């Protein structure tokens, strides 16, 4: 029996624009007093209308371009309708059949291409707060988050393991941070993950697919990995027990319990909502001209993979380049590029010294580099000869050593250092001195 998981990911990213998606309220809602950043638009008051935030749309296009998507010349917003107390208007403004960006890809380090189906723009909802007031269980609504711009990145089900999913997520995270549209802070909920999983099982009976399962709202890479692994196992077991295969009607939605480390059923397709999408009549469709797309493309910084390969071209080892890029060590990367034109500096060594914490790129790089990379006498036979010569010319000190004054070893090392103009390794010298004195 051969088992191949098919994993797709929906990633929601909250953009760090100055104002919300459709009104002028501040988008930065984290830790703010409830309902202090609201207006008629994001409260869904009667008569209020959405006006799209141009910066947010540009950020969405940037994400799409960074993920090699094509930008659709004609796009529009749609209303996604459902009832929930945190959804002020009774619908979320999203994009249904004409998203800003579609058909992109992202390369894993193995070279495997993960397809990106679409990157679209939408708005966040308010937040419910369940609490007890005067002994009564109540639910409060905070609309500060209502209308904060969100971008949804939908991959194709091209990942075959939790490891691939994790690598994909990390790369998305790095790209988002690199292009500067969001800090994508998982703890603040700025990046939320929803894996969709099923498993392809090949046995004597042929090829079988287990029913699709979507896992909602995961807020850490590790939980995503755990949930995916749990779900693969669960689905294989379920298939072995029931033989149920994927159909058009048996997709389910599950949650992930990070304490028990299990997924649990939330709703079946029969209970699934009909969102009654239709074009948002309050916002005219968008015509995005090529010139504009090119302008946005030019604003993009080097992406993580491009940055890694540009460092590799300078001779930096891939593992070091990855560390520098993933930790967003902009200064180090800049310095490595700057010194790559200096023949006396080896970028590979410089990068390694920085990554290993030996060289602090915020201080005088050249001085640190020189002292750390001084070419000393490393030939042991040469050093042996130097040490032997010092021993021979200092018989009285040797005599003291023989009497038990072992600290005179320091004298010989010091002399040898002087002789080698400080280029020899004190460690090797110490070893040699002890050995020769005892011979």
């Amino acid at each position: 029996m051969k088992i191949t998981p098919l994993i797709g990911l929906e990633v929601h990213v909250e953009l760090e624009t100055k104002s919300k998606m459709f009104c002028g309220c501040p988008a930065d809602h984290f830790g703010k007093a409830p309902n202090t950043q609201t207006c008629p638009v994001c409260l869904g008051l009667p008569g209020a209308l959405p006006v799209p935030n141009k910066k947010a749309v540009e950020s969405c296009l940037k994400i799409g371009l960074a993920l090699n998507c094509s930008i659709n010349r004609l796009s529009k917003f749609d209303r996604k309708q459902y009832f929930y107390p945190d959804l002020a208007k009774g619908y979320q403004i999203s994009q249904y059949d004409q998203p800003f960006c579609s058909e992109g890809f992202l390369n894993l380090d193995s070279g495997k291409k993960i397809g990106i189906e679409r990157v679209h723009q939408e708005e966040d909802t308010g937040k419910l707060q369940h609490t007890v007031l005067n002994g009564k269980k109540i639910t409060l609504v905070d609309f500060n988050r209502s209308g904060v711009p969100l971008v949804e990145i939908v991959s194709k089900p091209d990942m075959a393991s939790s490891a691939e999913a994790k690598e994909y997520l990390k790369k998305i995270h790095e790209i988002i941070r690199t292009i500067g549209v969001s800090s994508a802070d998982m703890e603040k909920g700025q990046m939320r993950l929803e894996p969709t999983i099923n498993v392809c099982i090949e046995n004597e009976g042929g090829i079988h697919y287990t029913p699709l399962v979507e896992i909602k709202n995961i807020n850490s890479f590790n939980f995503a990995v755990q949930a995916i692994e749990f779900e693969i196992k669960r689905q294989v077991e379920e298939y072995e027990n029931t033989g149920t295969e994927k159909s058009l009607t048996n997709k389910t939605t599950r949650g992930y319990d990070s304490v028990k480390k299990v997924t649990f059923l939330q709703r079946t397709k029969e209970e699934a909502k009909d969102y009654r999408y239709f074009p948002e009549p309050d916002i005219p469709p968008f015509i995005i001209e090529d010139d504009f797309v090119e302008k946005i493309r030019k604003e993009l910084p080097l992406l993580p993979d491009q940055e890694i390969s540009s460092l590799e071209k300078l001779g930096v080892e891939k593992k070091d380049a990855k560390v520098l890029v993933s930790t967003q060590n902009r200064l180090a990367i800049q310095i490595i590029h700057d010194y790559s034109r200096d023949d006396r500096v080896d970028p590979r060594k410089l990068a390694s010294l920085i990554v290993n914490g030996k060289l602090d790129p915020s201080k005088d790089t050249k001085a640190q580099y020189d002292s750390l990379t001084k070419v000393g006498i490393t030939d042991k036979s040469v050093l042996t000869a130097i040490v032997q010569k010092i021993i021979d010319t200092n018989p009285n000190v040797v005599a003291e050593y023989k009497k038990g004054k072992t600290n005179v070893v320091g004298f010989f090392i010091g002399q040898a250092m002087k002789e080698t103009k400080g280029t020899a390794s004190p460690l090797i010298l110490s070893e040699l001195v002890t050995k020769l004195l005892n011979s």
Partner: protein
Amino acid sequence: MKQLHELTIKEVHEGYRNRIFSCVDLVKHFLSRIDKYNPKLNIFLARNQHALEQAAVIDKEIAEKGIDRELLGIPMAIKDNFLTVGISTTASSNILKGYMPQYESTVTGKLLAAGAIFLGKTNMDSFAHGSSTETSDFGPTHNPWNPDKLPGGSSGGSAAAISAQLVTAALGSETAGSIRQPVAWCGVTGFKPTYGRAGRYGCIAMASSTDSPGPIAKTVEDVAIITKVISGKDPFDATTSSLDVENYPSFLGKTDLKGLRIGLVKEYLLPDMRDDVKKLILDSAEKFRSLGATVEEVSLMDPKYAIGVYTVVQRSEVSSNLARFDGIRFGHTRDSFGEETKRRIMLGTYTLSSGYYDAYYKKAQAVRTKMIDQFAEIFKTYDAVIGAVSPGPALSLGATKNQPMFGEMEDILVEQSSVAGLTSAGVPCGFVDGLPIGLQITCDQFQEAKALTIADCYQRNTAFNQFPDIDKTL
């Protein structure tokens, strides 16, 4: 000499300038008329409690600076779907009973900035769902020409307020006929600007893709003045146009219409239309000829298709727009929605449902595009098209009972131009059975100046712009 309530905007300003009367005098005069006639007509849902104080402030301004604002001291009635700070706004629905708006709508804000003074909010079909003002949760408005008749709708309160002369001017809104139809039934003048000409921010949404705020007043000149004030790019409404607003009143006063080509829409002379109504429309065509215009028959898609398109698109948008009245906020639960509103929510929810969307909504939009194209073709040759606004004069109270498609049947002749987002004037063109009949003069998008020019010339050269003697009719 004219009485205070009979004056147009310019005449009011003349009176102020010549110190014949003050703004306080005028407001007092109207308030006493409202006190006297409103109980019989049920036009006002809420009154501005500060109207007299505001009038006093305006008098002071006039004394100090003269009249340098277009609507300074003009008493107006506002349809109850426009949010007005300090005056409750309900859209004639129980679900918003007692609702005090948190902000001012764009167009009422512009009217206030131009110096207008609001006397109160006018009755309408609940959430503008109708053409009778009979679906209001607060009782029907009565037609000043005959209180047993409907005023039309949904801006029935505003049209009746002009007809009964309880204010100088009024604000309405049209989604498909909601200005032109009540204006026709009440025998007054109304104007529907192009969709996107005046901002919708703060106007409680009915069908977002066709809602258009517009004025109702005594004359074409007055509606032109108000249209100029309320038009223009609204930074809070992404569907408004940034095209410059023309100085509409400056185009008026033409003595003839030489060189203009007017299309008389053949299909708008419905087969079952009363002969006397048809005759009035043909007479108006003749009038335009005598004013020097070329009038020819033109053909449009059978208006019955507009009903289908409009019903599907509008119900779909309604079902979505009313979702925000979720019973959690605004103080009332969803069972406070009236019957007509519930019907529309259900139909719209159905037409947007998965599997039906393509069959209904998408198809309706495709036909809508065809209508737009057809109008575009006609406007290559013609400056305007004309036809009756409504198939007949005002119907009796109770006519909407068990008639869920009442509004659509009454608006059959104006829905096409609404779904195409055109601009159109509604002016009185005669009487049958002692009730007024309205003519629509419809022009291409953003041809407000042209529509107003033609309507103004017609109005000045006809004698149909009359007001009922409500002491007799009521």
